[in-house]
Each structure stands twice: as C-alpha cells, then as structure tokens.
C-alpha cells in the first residue's frame, strides 16, 4: 500500500476513533482542555470579530444611508420640479386673471387670448410670436389687428399662421400709433417706435401749445393710420408715460415715452379681434 494512502487511512481512523470515543466515553474534558488552551486566542479573535462586525454593520448602514440619501434626493428633485410646476401654474393663473381684468375693463372689445411663444431671434426687429388654442376665433385673426396686454398696448399683428401670429411691438421702428396725451386739452400725436435708435418710444406731432408734464399718460386715440386703416387700435389703451421733452420745433413738440408694457416679461397677450356693438 502506498504511503500516502496509509496516511489518509490513519487520519480517517483517527477521526472515527475520536468520534467513537466521544460517543462512548465522552471527550468533553479533552475538548474542554483544548478549548481552554485556545481560549485566549479565541477571545482575541472574537473581540476583533466584534470590532470588524461593528465596522461591517456601520459599512452596511453607510450603504443603506447612501441609498436612503439617493432616494431622498430623488424625492427632493421631484418635489422641486413639482413646486416649480405649481409656481408656473400660479403665475399663469395671475396672468390670465389680469387678462380677464382687461376684458372687464374693455367690455366692448372682442379679444383672443394668446401666449407668447417666441421672440425675434435676429435681434434687429422688435417682434413676438404668439400662439393660441381657441380654434374657432383663430380664423378671425388678421394682419394689422391690435395686440394688448393688461398693462397697455403691445403692438400689431404683422403675420398670421394657423395657430400663431407674429406681433410687431410698438417699440419697433416700423410701428406708428395714433395717440392722445391724457392732459388738459388732450393733445394728439403719433407714437413711433425707436428701439433700433436707442430709445423706445417717441411721440411726435404734438401741438406747440400743448402743456405736457413728465409722467402724463399717453393712450391710443383710436384714429387709423396707413397702411392699416381697416384695423385700427381701439381708443383708450395705455401706450406709455412721458419721460421727458425731446425737442420743441416751430410747429410741434416731441416727447420720449416709457412704454406701459414691460415687453421683456410679457407672457400672455390679447389680440383685439374687433369691437362689439353695444
């Protein structure tokens, strides 16, 4: 028999003998003595094991906390998005209420509410693109129609698409509006856009004798100017306030205006489809 086989058999026999002895006479004392010898080592290992276990638990806890943290961040992000969404709705609500107020202030006007969906990308024109969803009224939108906001006059429709329109702002150099100053004598003139020339609005052709003050309101007069004789601005819509007198010519005065509408923050407008007969 090979030596290796003998060794294995001896080991097997030892195991069996130990088992048998443990079964028959009980080797508790032997085992206890050996365990006593190994005791200090076992205690040291166990203490190390406890520390390692604590560390392992902390590690697992850290992982759990990390997961929890991730989950909570996801909730925070979701809630932030929801909050922003609600803020947007609230803001939209305010804007629409203002438009409703506009409707109430001008009961004679037939209006189509539209949302600002774009601004002129070229930077050299003062236009807005507005869109709407009310299909029935949309067919009535035509070039030249006035566009107003709760604060005042915005501009005029210059191009119509199926669900949108381009609006030329009153500040654009191509815009002219017949206006009246809300002051003694109610002098009239024409408000021209001057944004491309560095100012915003200029009111020209004011009579020489008109007494004008800074801060006086300028409103639409309702007179129609070419080339939009058919689609005039309704009267009484605020255009702006007099900022200062620019020139006093022989026959006319000229003043600079501050627009009533903050065009940068404009989100909702109303297109004046027409005037309702009383």
């Amino acid at each position, binding site marked *: 028999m090979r030596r*290796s086989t003998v*060794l*294995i058999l001896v*080991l*097997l026999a*030892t*195991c*069996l*003998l*130990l*088992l048998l*002895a*443990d*079964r028959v006479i009980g*080797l508790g004392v*032997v*085992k206890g003595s*050996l*365990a006593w010898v*190994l005791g200090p*080592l*076992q205690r040291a*290992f*166990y203490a*190390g*094991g*406890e520390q*390692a*276990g604590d560390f*392992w638990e902390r590690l697992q806890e850290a992982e759990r906390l990390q997961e929890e943290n991730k989950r909570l961040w996801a909730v925070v992000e979701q809630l932030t998005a929801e909050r922003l969404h609600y803020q947007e709705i609230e803001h939209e609500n305010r804007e629409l209420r203002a438009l409703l107020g506009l409707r109430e202030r001008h009961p004679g006007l037939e209006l189509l509410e539209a949302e600002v969906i774009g601004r002129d990308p070229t930077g050299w024109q003062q236009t807005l693109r507005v869109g709407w969803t009310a299909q029935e009224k949309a067919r009535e939108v035509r070039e030249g129609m006035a566009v107003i906001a709760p604060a005042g006059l915005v501009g005029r429709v210059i191009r119509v698409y199926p669900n949108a329109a381009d609006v030329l702002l009153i500040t654009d150099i191509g815009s002219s509006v017949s206006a009246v100053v809300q002051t003694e004598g109610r002098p009239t003139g024409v408000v021209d856009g001057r944004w491309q020339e560095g100012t915003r609005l200029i009111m020209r052709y004011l009579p020489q004798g008109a007494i004008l003050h800074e801060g006086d309101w300028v409103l639409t007069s309702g007179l129609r100017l070419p080339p939009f004789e058919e689609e005039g601005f309704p009267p009484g819509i605020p255009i702006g306030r007099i900022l200062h007198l620019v020139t006093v010519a022989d026959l006319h005065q000229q003043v600079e205006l501050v627009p009533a509408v903050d065009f940068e923050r404009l989100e909702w407008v109303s297109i004046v489809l027409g005037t309702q007969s009383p």
Partner: protein
Amino acid sequence: MVYGITLAVLLLALLQVSLMPRLPLLEVRPDLVLLVALAWGMVRGSVEGAVVAFGGGLALDILSSFPLGGQALALLLTVVALSWLGASFSRGNPLFPVAGAFLGSWVYHLLLLLLAQLFGQAVAWGGTLRHVVLPLSLVEAALMLPVYWLLDQLERRTHRRARAA
C-alpha cells in the same frame, strides 16, 4: 509547506467561529476552512489536502459544539474525494475549482448533517438543504476562484524556490 497551511487553517478556524458570524456574506457564512482545505487538496493533491482538512476540522471541532472528530471526518472525506476526482482535470481550467467547491460544499454539509443525525441531533433536512446549503454552496463556489488562485500562486512560488535550492 503543508504545516504552514495547516497553521493558517487553524487561524481560519478561529476566524470562522469568531469573525464570520459577524460578517454574513449574502446572509450566509462561507466555510473558510473548507475552501482552503479543498483548494490546497486541488493544488497539492489528496495527501496534503487531507492533512490540512484534518487539522482544520479538528480545530473546528474544538471550537464548536460538534462531536470531536466529526467535522474533521467530514472535511477529510470531502477533500480526499474531491482531490481524487479533480486529479484528472487540468489545473488551469477555472471551472475545476468552482465546480469542486460547489460539489465539495454539498458533500461536506451532507456528511455533517448525517453525522449530526447519527449523534442524535435534530436535523431538518429539507429546510437546511434549501435555505442553508444551497446558497452557501453558491457563495463558496464564487469565493473559491480567488482562494484557489491565491494558493495556486503560493504553491507555484514555493515550488519554484524549492527547485532552485
């Protein structure tokens, strides 16, 4: 070399009873002594594996409530059987240690359960095999790769040094 490994296995037995219960891996406690004894038997053959299994098994017997010689016998039989079975396989095949550990784990635990029953302990065969032995054998099979690689490297290095001397 075999005595060094046996001493290491004794320390592993201490770790097995003190550290591993605190560090459950996937809800099971891998049997470090079994893994090292099996791996050494695969690397160095059945005799050296048997010596390591005997030493480690006895240490576990002393440190646990199992009858003295019981774990040593189960470990010895498992390692010798797997070493013989594995003798025909190539050592470079990674399937060899993994399959060996999976099979060895089942053989070892079945023997332990059998011995426990023989010694009058209550054994819930179905539940133990399903909920303990099966996941344990899978974890041990996965752990065997690094253990086998480590011992194989150690063996190659010491063998080379011995030949050079």
